């Protein structure tokens, strides 16, 4: 679905934000991109939507070279909720905000209405329908950007720091929405520092540092790789760390982090 072939990108100030990145993300995959601030995560995402074009190498999305495709055509396929929702919200009211892209993509009015209602309900924003997006709290604005994107049903959904400003109840709902997306065949890319949120979904994890990919593999494998995590300044999930401390005692049932997770989950219900 998404392919980076030896992609490099240099910011105007001379900083190499991507340095020879090669990466293939398939349909219906869930991928977490982690790494310290400035590792190149957001720059990578901007290449998928065609907002940035590679200096060298190619980025191909659903068979189309992003250099030769318009951003409008790409955005029909790829929806991104950026880190700062203030950069993305501009309409007079929440409902206009939600219908803006739908109208641009030529959806019929009944369908626009249906999708707007669906999105506001899914993210608990119905009461703000007629309000200005500016009166929403930080967490609500983030949910609104997400609702806007899901409304046009893109194949790839990219969420940059989606848990910022979200309380635990909203985070749980968000995790549910992500599961719904992957089970309906969408490709989901999550950029986040919130390792405690990412880990239970057991995504494929791509670790970045200094514009390079330092590690790429399934969560259980990478989250045990202390060398890579240390180098990329990524925290280890608490239950994985706990399990490692108990490696000598396999008889303790929660030494297995996923088992511990299920246990903890059950208790909080």
């Amino acid at each position: 679905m998404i392919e980076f072939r030896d992609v490099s990108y240099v910011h105007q100030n001379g900083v190499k934000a991507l340095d020879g990145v090669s990466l293939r993300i398939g349909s219906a995959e869930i991928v977490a991109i982690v790494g310290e601030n400035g590792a190149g995560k957001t720059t990578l995402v901007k290449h998928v939507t065609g907002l940035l074009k590679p200096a060298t190498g190619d980025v191909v999305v659903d068979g189309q070279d992003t250099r030769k495709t318009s951003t409008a055509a790409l955005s029909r396929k790829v929806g991104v909720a950026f880190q700062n929702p203030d950069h993305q919200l501009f309409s007079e009211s929440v409902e206009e905000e939600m219908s803006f892209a739908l109208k641009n993509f030529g959806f019929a009015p009944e369908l626009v209405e249906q999708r707007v209602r669906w999105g506001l309900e899914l993210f608990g924003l119905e009461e703000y329908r007629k309000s200005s997006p500016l009166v929403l709290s930080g967490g609500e604005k983030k949910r609104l950007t997400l609702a806007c994107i899901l409304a046009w049903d893109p194949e790839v959904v990219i969420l940059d720091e989606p848990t910022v400003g979200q309380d635990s109840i909203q985070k749980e709902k968000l995790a549910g929405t992500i599961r719904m997306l992957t089970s309906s065949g969408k490709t989901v890319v999550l950029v986040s520092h919130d390792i405690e949120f990412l880990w239970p979904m057991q995504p494929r994890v791509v670790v970045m540092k200094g514009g390079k990919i330092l590690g790429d593999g399934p969560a259980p494998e990478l989250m045990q790789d202390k060398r890579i995590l240390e180098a990329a300044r990524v925290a280890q999930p608490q239950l994985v760390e706990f399990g490692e401390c108990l490696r000598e005692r396999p008889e303790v049932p929660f030494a297995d982090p996923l088992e511990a997770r299920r246990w903890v989950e059950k208790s909080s219900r």
Partner: protein
Amino acid sequence: MADILEITGLSFRYPDSPKKAVSDFSLSVPEEEIVVLAGPSGCGKSTLLRTVNGLIPHMYTGEYSGNVKVGGVEVKESTMRDLAQKVGFLFQNPENQIFMFTVERDIAFGLENLGVPRAEMRDRVDEAMRLLEIGDLALRAPHELSDGQKQRVALAGVLAMKPRLVILDEPTSLLDPRTAAELVDLVGRLRRELGTTFVVVEHRLDLLVKVADRIVVMNEGRKALEGTPEAVLFGDEAEAYGVTIPSVTRLQKMLAADGRLPLTGLLSPAELARALEGERR
């Protein structure tokens, strides 16, 4: 110690809103405390902060009743100028707060606005850079810095005003875990060295519990819970109000309920594993 912040029976309703954003809320914060304010999104935290730094009622009007006192003086009777020197505010995204061409000019911005004499301004800026260990960045352009460095520059600008109370609005949310841990350590150190009081809004408590004295949880404009980090995180109610209980703390609670260890102190994953090791002996 005297209370730096005293809120009594505060209610506030925005003009267009049917319900009160803050409702009969009271809170006393003694000097040198670090208080964490948590609660579900839309619970009134941001409104409450605005009543402390004076944006309410000086910039936002609405139905206001009750009292907010900072350093013994009513906020509604103070000027924004006085408040700017008493209450420092660090926004979630430092990019909303830094805009000058060099780091030191940025830190000096608030002081310039107050007309602080040049020599004193120089001293205060240097002192703030020393405290935050960013002296080497003095002549750099803020937009070239990393997110963690930007946060420090913004905080230096706040500290240069020598506020007795500093409010941090989700200060770690955009930082990677290591940088976030460094910021939390810094808050603890500033409290020790300067005696500054901190009110920190945060959903993520795993890092802050190390330095916090108290957690206050808001819900629907009211105070829902208040207690030490242990009392709130070990209790059964916090989760219902959207507070993220660290998974290791949940595990600790369950192990304690099983009688495998006593429920004392919030343990890190390694400490919890060691406590279980002790169980074997």
